[in-house]
C-alpha cells in the first residue's frame, strides 16, 4: 500500500514547472516582438538593449505579478474552502477584498488628503480593517471562532463595504470614477517591481501558515468536533486559517485588484486531478493558479491588441461558463 501523498506529488511538480515556464515565456508575447538572443545578450549594454529593457522592466514584473497574485488567490481560496468547509467559498467570501477595494477607492478619490501613500498601501489598510472587524465579530460571541458567525459577518461586511464604495464613487469626479472602475475590474498593469516587493513579505508569511495548515485542514473537513477528538486544536487552526488566508488575499488584491474566479476555478480543477488532500491541493493550486493567471494576462494583453483588457474580465469570462459546466457535470456540488 503506497502513500496517497506520494501518488499526487508528480502533479504538484508538473504545476510548478508550468508556473515557471509561464512566467519566463509570457514576457516574449506582446505588441513588440522580443528576440531571445538579444534579451539575454551579455555583449549589448543594458542601457542600449531595448529588448532586455522591455523584458526586464516592463513585461517581467507584470508576469511575476500575475503569477504571485494568481498563486496566492488560488491557495487562499483553498484555505477559505477548508476553513468554512464549503467548496464554494472564495478568498472574497469574508469581505477582505471589499475592504481592500474600499481602501483603494478612498485613495483614488481623496488621494491627496490621505496621510499614507498610494493605492496599494490604502487597499492593504482597507483589507486589514475588514479582517479586524470580521474577526472581532466572529470571536465576540464565544471562545474560539464560530465559522457560522464568520460567514455571516463576512457576507455583511461585503455588502457594507460595497455601499461605502458606492458612496465614495458618488463623491468622486469622472476621471477618478474611471480609475476606480478600472481598479475594481482587476488589473495587473504594475509599474515595476515596487508593488510586488511591498506585498511579498505578507504573502510569504501567509504561505508558511498555509504549509502548516495543510494537514489540520484535512481533519477539519470531518467537522470541528471530529477534528478535536483526533487531536486538532480547532480554535488555533481556525485562527491561523482566517488570518493567513485574509492577509494573503489582502496582499494579492493590493497588487492586482479584486480579480475574480481564480480562487475557486483553480482549486476545483486541481482537486479533480490530485484529490482532496490539502497537502497536495494547496501547493498544486498555488502553482497552477500562478500559471493560470499569467496565461489569462497574456490573453488580456493580446486578444484585442493594441487595446488591453483588464485581466479580471478575462477570468470572469472563463469563470462563468466554467461554473455552468460544473453545475451540469456534477449534481452533488
Amino acid at each position: 500500500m503506497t502513500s496517497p501523498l506520494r501518488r499526487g506529488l508528480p502533479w504538484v511538480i508538473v504545476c510548478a514547472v508550468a508556473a515557471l515556464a509561464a512566467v519566463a515565456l509570457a514576457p516574449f508575447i506582446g505588441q513588440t516582438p522580443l528576440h531571445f538572443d538579444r534579451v539575454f545578450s551579455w555583449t549589448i549594454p543594458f542601457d542600449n538593449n531595448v529588448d532586455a529593457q522591455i523584458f526586464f522592466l516592463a513585461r517581467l514584473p507584470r508576469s511575476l505579478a500575475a503569477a504571485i497574485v494568481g498563486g496566492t488567490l488560488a491557495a487562499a481560496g483553498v484555505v477559505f474552502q477548508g476553513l468554512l468547509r464549503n467548496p464554494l467559498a472564495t478568498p472574497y467570501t469574508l469581505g477582505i477584498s471589499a475592504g481592500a477595494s474600499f481602501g483603494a477607492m478612498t485613495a483614488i478619490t481623496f488621494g491627496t488628503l490621505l496621510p499614507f501613500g498610494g493605492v496599494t498601501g490604502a487597499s492593504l489598510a482597507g483589507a486589514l480593517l475588514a479582517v479586524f472587524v470580521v474577526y472581532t465579530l466572529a470571536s465576540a460571541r464565544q471562545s474560539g471562532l464560530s465559522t457560522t458567525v464568520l460567514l455571516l459577518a463576512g457576507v455583511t461586511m461585503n455588502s457594507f463595504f460595497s455601499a461605502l464604495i458606492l458612496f465614495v464613487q458618488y463623491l468622486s469626479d469622472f476621471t477618478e470614477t474611471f480609475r476606480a472602475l478600472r481598479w475594481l475590474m482587476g488589473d495587473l498593469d504594475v509599474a515595476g517591481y515596487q508593488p510586488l516587493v511591498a506585498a511579498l513579505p505578507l504573502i510569504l508569511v501567509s504561505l508558511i501558515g498555509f504549509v502548516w495548515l495543510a494537514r489540520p485542514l484535512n481533519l477539519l473537513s470531518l467537522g470541528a468536533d471530529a477534528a478535536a477528538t483526533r487531536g486538532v486544536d480547532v480554535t488555533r487552526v481556525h485562527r491561523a486559517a482566517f488570518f493567513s488566508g485574509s492577509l494573503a488575499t489582502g496582499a494579492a488584491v493590493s497588487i492586482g485588484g479584486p480579480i475574480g474566479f481564480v480562487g475557486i476555478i483553480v482549486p476545483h480543477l486541481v482537486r479533480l486531478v490530485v484529490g482532496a488532500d490539502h497537502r497536495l491541493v494547496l501547493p498544486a493550486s498555488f502553482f497552477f493558479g500562478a500559471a493560470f493567471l499569467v496565461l489569462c494576462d497574456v490573453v488580456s494583453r493580446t486578444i484585442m491588441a493594441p487595446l488591453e483588457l483588464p485581466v479580471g474580465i478575462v477570468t470572469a469570462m472563463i469563470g462563468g461558463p466554467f461554473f455552468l459546466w460544473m453545475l451540469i457535470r456534477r449534481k452533488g456540488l
Partner: protein
Amino acid sequence: MLCATDLSVAFGAQHVLTHVSINIPVGAIVGILGPNGSGKTTLLRILDGTLTPDQGHVTLDGHNQRSFDRRAIARRVAVVPQDTHLAFDYTVLEVVLMGRYPHLRAFEVEGPADLAAARDALKATGTLELAHRAYQTLSGGEKQRVIIAAALAQLDQRTMADAGSALLLLDEPTASLDLRYQVEVAALIGRLHERAVNDGAPLTVVLSTHDLHFASHICHTLVLLAEGKIVAQGAPGDVLTVETLSTVYGISQELAAPVLARIQMGPQR
C-alpha cells in the same frame, strides 16, 4: 481506565447532566442508554474531552483528563460520531490515515508504520477492498465501518513508547443504519473487542444507543440516563427491568413487560 466523578453541565438554564458519576474499567463494554435528550451525547463529549463540565472531572488512568494535551488524549481515546459528512472528496484510505494525526508532529508525513496501521484497521473492519474508493460514494454501513477503521488506526499505538490501553467511544453507532448494517456493525464491535482481548491489549468500548436489544447483548455494563440523571447502572439484567423501562421511557408496565421479554431473548448472532 476512565472515571467520571460528579459531572454536571447546564446549557443556559437547562440542566443537561446532574451529578453523574461512572467508572469504566479497562476492557469493559459500557452502554449508555436513555431517551432522546437524556444527556447521552453530552456525556460522551465530556468523556472524550471536547466538552468541559461545569462541575466534576474525568480521570484517565487516575490523572485528570485536563492535564493531558489534546493529542495525548487522542492517542488513547477515539470517537466514532453518529454520522460523518466530509466537506471534500477524500478516499477511504485518506480518511483512515487521518486517524494517525495525533501520532505525527507538525509537518510530518505518514510513514510506513502509519500505512501499516491503516491497512490493519481496514482489514479488521472488512473495508480493505474499499481503500481507494471515494468515501462519499459508500453506503451508510460502509461509511460507518470506515470511520471505525479510522478510529482503530488512531488507537494503534505501535509507534508509541508510552502506550496505554485504548478507549473507543461510539455515539449511536447503529442509529442511521438499516437492519442489515445494524447487525453488521454490532458484530464488528464485538469482534474488535474480542480480537483486542486475544492480542493482550484490551480495548475499552463506550457506546450510546437506543437499541436496547443490541446494548443488552453486547455490553457488560449499562448506564441508564433520564433527564440528565443516572437512573440505574450495572449489569444489563439489573438495569433493564420493567420498573426502570416504564419510568424512564414513560410507558406502562404492561407495555414494558413484553419489550423486556423481547430484549431478553437470546442474541440474534
